[in-house]
């Protein structure tokens, strides 16, 4: 319980120091008080499992596997959407499909939903946490049943996010 608030205090202080770079001692003193207030108020909401932050392997996977793939997918998504918008006939084929996921923790589900929203042609509409089901709006539906949609949309992120956040 104390450990969570301490981690949140350090993170808030780092963000404060980045906001007024280069920090002098007056800014740091005000920052200590405001970070203490923030971590006292919202300490038990932000970090659920503090022991996850100790594993160095997770940072390695996050920086070298997740971030480059995310940037490439975002650029592909933008070119795809720009092509569909500029085409005279609007080549869209929209619909809402249902996909399954095996991820359990809240952070992993949030990052999965955000990645799906920013990648080509898909956007998360709703999450059902108990059954592990995501409803995804797709601008160009290829497979209508659950298995083929899962294979197309979720599979490429799930393996990396399982290494990072589970």
């Amino acid at each position: 319980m104390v450990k969570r608030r301490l981690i949140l205090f350090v993170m808030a202080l780092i963000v404060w120091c980045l906001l007024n770079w280069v920090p002098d001692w007056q800014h740091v003193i005000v920052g200590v008080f405001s970070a203490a207030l923030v971590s006292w108020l919202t300490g038990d909401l932000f970090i659920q499992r503090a022991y996850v932050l100790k594993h160095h392997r997770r940072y390695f996977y996050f920086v070298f596997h997740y971030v480059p793939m995310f940037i490439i997918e975002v650029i592909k998504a933008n070119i795809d959407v720009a092509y569909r918008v500029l085409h005279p006939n609007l080549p869209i084929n929209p619909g809402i499909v249902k996909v399954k996921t095996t991820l359990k923790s809240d952070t992993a589900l949030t990052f999965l939903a955000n990645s799906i929203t920013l990648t080509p042609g898909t956007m998360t509409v709703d999450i059902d946490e108990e059954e592990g089901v995501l409803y995804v709006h797709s601008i160009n539906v290829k497979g209508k049943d659950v298995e083929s949609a899962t294979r197309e949309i979720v599979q490429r992120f799930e393996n990396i996010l399982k290494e990072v956040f589970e």
Partner: protein
Amino acid sequence: MVDTIGLIFIVIGLAFDAFGCLGVLRLPDVYNRLQAATKCVTMGTCSILFGAFLIVGLTTTGIKALLCIVFLLLTTPVAAHAIARGAHKSGVKLWEGSVIDRYAEDGKG
């Protein structure tokens, strides 16, 4: 040299901003508009901010621009998700050319 790369990033960002707003105007229903708007405008604005960071350098302003990029990438998909869910629950229909709607079939919408 670095300034030229920054200006190129700014021009790419302006182009994608314009495409995203054109998509908001052209596409037929709320969900498709949300797709075009979220992707193109988020990436365009992040590109403008990164170009500003390259021109300004690693000063107070540059670090604020980088924090703005992280903040946009975290918040825009959440806002899009909230709008789509609210629109579906308030009874906005999909476009008549839509193929499938599993969300209404499962009785959640």
